[in-house]
């Protein structure tokens, strides 16, 4: 019986990929375990192995096809004596790579929490982008890489170090191409030794270099947090201003998808508490680029929190020689009059989706992206709340001592008389991240929760 081979999901977050190359041709006899094809995602190129034995009957998707959705039939395998044309009777077989789980059945789609389509802000033009500037659709991943490359061209003392940043081209492909351009002296693969290389890079920064330390994810920075806080953040103060530690700690932060408790947490509020650190958490590609360039030029240590789920999302990025986004300046994505929604990082996705939905129901939401948490642009938030008189904060981190809590206190102190409803802080639930798909969904903040919270503060 003919069997369809489906486009495999090679990582928990993969939705589509490129069928880079077939390694078998029609008519070939296939053994289980043979490499059928090379599949490229935005993160990596992987080999796709045959699960069953048989004969390659028909290749449905040609070499080099891009944007092939997961679970699309890409070929048909037949048994001895069968015809390659016997496609109509083909039964779908689970597509499976050795290292990848089977994609979820069609009736319970894997939670796709990130819009694949480009996001364009409904906002007034930014003051720092000249009118008429060309915009180019760029993924967050490319924007981060471009920022590093531009700064490395500009300053020889800037270098990148971390696990798999060089030859592997980045565990999440953020550093793609940097080794080729800058060489092994400046793009350095480290052993798996976070505590050690974070201390080492901090020492190098104290001696005049400008390290960019990539943590594969910020979960692993827990091994190194002593040097981030006790070394990098305190050097300037403890030395009476003699020495600084100009260093960037960057990497994926927050929940990815189905990776469980130890790999899914948002450190925004943790690092935002530390005097001596700057903390940035961009949402859009333009901000990722502009803020990372600022971070690299900063004479202070910067914790730069990225998100795996938005690495592949495209946004407009201004085509400029030197696009810089300053720290401490929030961005109003959307102006509104009825409620202020304040968020940052991936929380912005829910905030913006909610604002779209609410607009259909006649609620005008102002959506503010904090962009940096330290320094934090209190004034923009306060001014907005004075206008709308209501506020909802949205973040992925845990509820206790959250950024939302801090903003609520600030709003209470500075704009108490303007409030028409208590501020609502939306956060991730107060639980370690579960693995099960339904529970994970429940643990995260959602667009619906934002909509409901806005309705609550606007008494609708």
């Amino acid at each position, binding site marked *: 019986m003919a069997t369809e081979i489906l486009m495999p999901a090679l990582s928990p977050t993969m939705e589509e990929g490129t069928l880079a190359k077939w390694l078998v041709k029609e008519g070939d006899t296939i053994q289980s375990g043979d490499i059928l094809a090379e599949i490229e995602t935005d993160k990596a190129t992987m080999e796709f192995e045959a699960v069953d034995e048989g004969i390659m009957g028909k290749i449905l998707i040609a070499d080099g096809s891009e944007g092939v959705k997961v679970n699309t039939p890409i070929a048909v395998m037949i048994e001895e004596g069968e015809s390659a044309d016997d496609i109509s009777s083909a039964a779908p077989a689970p597509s499976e790579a050795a290292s990848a789980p089977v994609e979820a059945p069609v009736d319970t789609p894997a939670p796709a929490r990130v819009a694949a389509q480009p996001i364009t802000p409904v906002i007034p033009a930014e003051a720092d982008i000249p009118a008429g500037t060309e915009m180019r659709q760029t993924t967050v991943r490319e924007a981060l890489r471009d920022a590093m490359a531009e700064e490395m061209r500009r300053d020889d*003392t800037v*270098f990148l170090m971390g696990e798999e940043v060089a030859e592997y081209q980045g565990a999440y492909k953020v550093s793609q191409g940097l080794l080729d351009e800058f060489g092994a*002296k400046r793009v350095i693969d*480290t*052993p798996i*030794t976070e*505590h*050690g*290389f*974070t*201390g*080492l*890079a*901090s*020492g*190098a*920064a*104290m*001696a*005049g*270099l400008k390290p960019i330390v990539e943590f594969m994810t910020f979960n692993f920075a827990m091994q190194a947090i*002593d*040097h981030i806080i*006790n*070394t990098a953040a*305190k*050097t*300037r*103060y*403890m*030395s*009476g*201003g*003699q*020495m*600084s530690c*100009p260093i960037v700690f960057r990497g994926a932060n927050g929940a990815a998808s189905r990776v469980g408790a130890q790999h899914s947490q948002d450190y925004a509020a943790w690092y935002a508490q530390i*005097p*001596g650190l*700057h903390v940035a958490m961009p949402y859009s590609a333009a901000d990722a680029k502009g803020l990372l360039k600022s971070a690299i030029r*900063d*004479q*202070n240590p910067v914790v730069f929190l990225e998100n795996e789920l938005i690495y592949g999302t495209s946004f407009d990025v201004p085509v400029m020689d030197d696009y810089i986004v300053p720290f401490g300046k929030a961005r109003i994505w959307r102006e509104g009059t009825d409620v202020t929604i304040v968020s940052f990082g991936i929380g912005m996705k829910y905030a913006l989706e909610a604002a779209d939905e609410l607009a259909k129901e006649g609620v005008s939401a102002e959506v503010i992206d904090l962009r940096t948490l330290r320094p934090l642009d209190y004034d923009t938030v306060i001014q907005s709340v004075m206008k709308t008189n209501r506020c909802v904060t949205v973040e992925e981190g845990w509820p206790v001592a959250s950024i939302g809590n801090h903003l609520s206190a600030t709003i209470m102190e500075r704009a108490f008389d303007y409030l028409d409803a208590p501020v609502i802080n939306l956060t991730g639930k107060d639980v370690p991240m579960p693995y099960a798909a339904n529970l994970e969904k429940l643990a995260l903040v959602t667009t619906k929760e934002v909509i409901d919270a806005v309705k609550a503060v606007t008494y609708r």
Partner: protein
Amino acid sequence: MAARKSAKKSNTSKEDLLTFYREMLLIRRFEEKSGQLYGMGLIGGFCHLYIGQEAVVVGLEAAAIEGDKRVTSYRDHGHMLACGMDPKGVMAELTGREGGYSRGKGGSMHMFSTEKHFYGGHGIVGAQVPIGTGLAFADKYLENGGVTFAYFGDGAANQGQVYESFNMASLWELPVIYVIENNQYAMGTSLQRASSTPEIYTRGEAFGIKGEAVDGMDVMAVRDAGLRATEYCRSGKGPYILEMKTYRYRGHSMSDPAKYRTREEVQKVREERDAIEHVRELLLQGKHASEEELKAIDKEIKAVVNDAAEFSKVSPEPALEELWTDIYA
């Protein structure tokens, strides 16, 4: 002071011996004064004295050249004096005054000097080891020929980050000298109660790092080992380990009940191995200096230390605005 059992003959020049004597004595008198000021309530918090270990930093500084870097733990006063930092600025930092190296905001454990390439003064046991490795990384990156001395104790030698550093330093051939100041007690826990091996210098072997044990109470032996190590590092061969067998006469900090060792043990080291007494005998035996000349040096050092103490008392406390400065560049 009681005589040493044996004063080794030395081929060290008169000038070098006098310099060693002067520098070690400065550290000892400075630390004695610190102890006094602590007792008077002028120095607060933790205060870790270096008395007994003076030969280590003085000997190694004799092997350093301009531009070399150093980083150490919280027992750092001796390192700062040995690399030429001003005793007034160090003492005023101990008393938390404006005239201190960190303008009173660092304290005993956290002091720095860009001018003297002294990178702290670190309060977290072992943290200075990867930091020192990073200083060496910068030297190699900038190709400036510098070498870094990363000092840590026998206690810190059990921290995991030390071995993470060894691995990277060896892998990348970084010009760093790991100086293990084995004073035999990690706070109150003796080496044999904390270490699976008595020879800490062998702990680099797994990483291919050359190491040697040195009599850290003999300033000439320390200097010679320092010269071997700096030559090795400067020639691009990678890191080097020096385990200095030394001894701290005072407690771990000022609030140490000293129940973990006997008075006799301390007394024996003072009588038989004291580094300053050793050099003093060599000076006298070699007729390089008379008792009177040495007394004159003692007096001179005492004056330097008294000046530092006086400065540390009259220098004002930092202005209240200082609370909010130097957090960000």
